[in-house]
């Protein structure tokens, strides 16, 4: 039986979380569970719970980063072992830190959690001018574009980029999500962004919510 609580506890195992998760995975597979169901009913709810506790300040960045890394490894192992592709399950997100800002951590956390949750993530990097975001939209046809900023000055660059994306996206197909330490929900709304993530986990939850997926 797939028990998300067991996966949750395994992610947070003090000694060897990876080994404990692999053991649970193997057990579920030997019971005849489908890899897709293990991901949907076991791994993803467990990671969502870790994210939720992180947002509440009950879990910390080392646990979040580490869990994201293990999740990614598990997904890769399941994919390679069972020729299993789940990329079609959720959408594509183009992620970048706006021009003038070289901060990586928040954006990378979003990428890690989004990927672990089943999104296809295209990380176009840091210090990205608005034209590069537009080019990436042309190339990857994403459902979401995520913009990150840490400095107050680059929040203004964020405004410019959101404006340009919205101007080009006449059919309103793309949802723009913004985040970063100084960014607030009011600011996100003011600059015309569709979604605001108060932290990495919240950002991914909001994108899932926008796709009608309940956490």
């Amino acid at each position: 039986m797939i028990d998300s609580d067991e996966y949750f506890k395994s992610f947070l195992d003090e000694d060897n979380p990876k080994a404990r998760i692999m053991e649970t995975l193997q057990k579920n597979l030997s019971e005849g569970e489908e890899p897709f169901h293990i991901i949907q009913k076991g791994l993803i709810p467990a990671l969502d719970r870790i994210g939720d506790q992180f947002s509440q300040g009950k879990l910390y960045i080392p646990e979040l980063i580490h869990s994201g890394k293990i999740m990614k490894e598990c997904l890769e192992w399941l994919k390679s072992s069972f020729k299993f592709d789940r990329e079609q399950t959720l959408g594509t997100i183009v992620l970048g830190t706006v021009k003038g800002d070289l901060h990586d951590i928040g954006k990378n956390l979003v990428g890690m959690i989004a990927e672990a949750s089943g999104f296809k993530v295209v990380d176009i990097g840091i210090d990205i001018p608005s034209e590069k975001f537009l080019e990436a939209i042309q190339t990857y046809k994403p459902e979401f574009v995520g913009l990150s900023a840490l400095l107050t000055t680059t929040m203004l660059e964020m405004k410019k980029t959101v404006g340009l994306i919205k101007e080009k996206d006449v059919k309103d197909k793309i949802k723009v999500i913004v985040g970063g330490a100084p960014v607030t929900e009011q600011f996100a709304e003011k600059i015309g962004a569709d979604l605001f993530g108060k932290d990495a986990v919240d950002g991914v939850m909001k994108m899932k919510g926008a796709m009608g997926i309940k956490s």
Partner: protein
Amino acid sequence: MNEKIVKGRLPMKLNPDFNRVIATFNHEEPDRVPLGDFAVDKEKKEEFLGKPVNDLQTEVEFWYKAGFDFVPMFAGILEPAKSIGKTAFSKDEDKEGGVREWADEKKGLITTDAEFERFNWPTPEDYPIDKYKEVQSLLPQGMKLCVTMGKIYTPAWMLMGAETFFMAVREKSPLVEKLLDRIGRLQFAIYERILESCDVGAVLSSDDIAHNAGLFVKPDFLRKHVFPWYKKTGDICRDKKIPYVCHSDGKMTDVLDELIELGFNGIHPIQPNVMDIKEIKEKYGKKLTLLGNINLEFPLSLGTPEDVREEVRIRIKEIAPGGGYLVSSSNSITSYVPIENFKAMIEAVFEFGNYPINL
């Protein structure tokens, strides 16, 4: 100084008096609410003074003319980018062309035992105390020297690179412990020497241990590897009866009780989007003096001088009665804060901060 003095407008009649700060920390009402920022970007100081700030005399002149009762000075390793080497560090350029240095966020300079051993570690003697003594000799009547020290956690992650550091913490790598111990010993040796040799008015321990949702790492980790160093400096401050202020960005609410036990009697900068200054004042009363909370994003960076004036007025009205509050930005005065807004903050303190508060 031949500038025309206009009541309530800069340049104004200045009467620096560090006793004002001490009274505030004693939760008494001095004549006026003091200013409490400890960091102003060089570009902003120069714009304020209208001339380069390249020596200690001009540095002191800035803090005096900006209405402060103290001159803050940094000590020890701050951002390794500035004091050790720039190999692994990147730069952000702000709008005014100033350069902002940041530590590498992935892989830093020390990620293995071999790199730890090879690293060109500074010694306490590499941080001479002459400049603190020189500042003391330059202080106008009534002003004191304050020192920003206490970075233990921040240099550790900056030296390792953030992601490497967080993974190492999760995996309980002995390298993290070794690194924190080495930094702690170095920093404390520097601090001890300054506190013994100089007449320091107050200490600001500046170490960012929190982000917007809470602490970066488990409190147990901080208790074991970081807090003991805070306490050692706190013990000296307690013996000398000088204020000891904890600065951390982000939400540090969960460990406020412990910080008080470690010897802190003030906190800064109380980020308004994640910490409720009114709740903190209500809960901790006279145990903590509060510094900060004037929002760097809005109004300081993106608002008008009138917005700034109003925010300062409200904060003074709500928090300053009974002492225990110093007006300061919710981070620092960065190069991108318009000079008119910085001036508006100072002027509002002189306009609304006179005790008894009657707003």
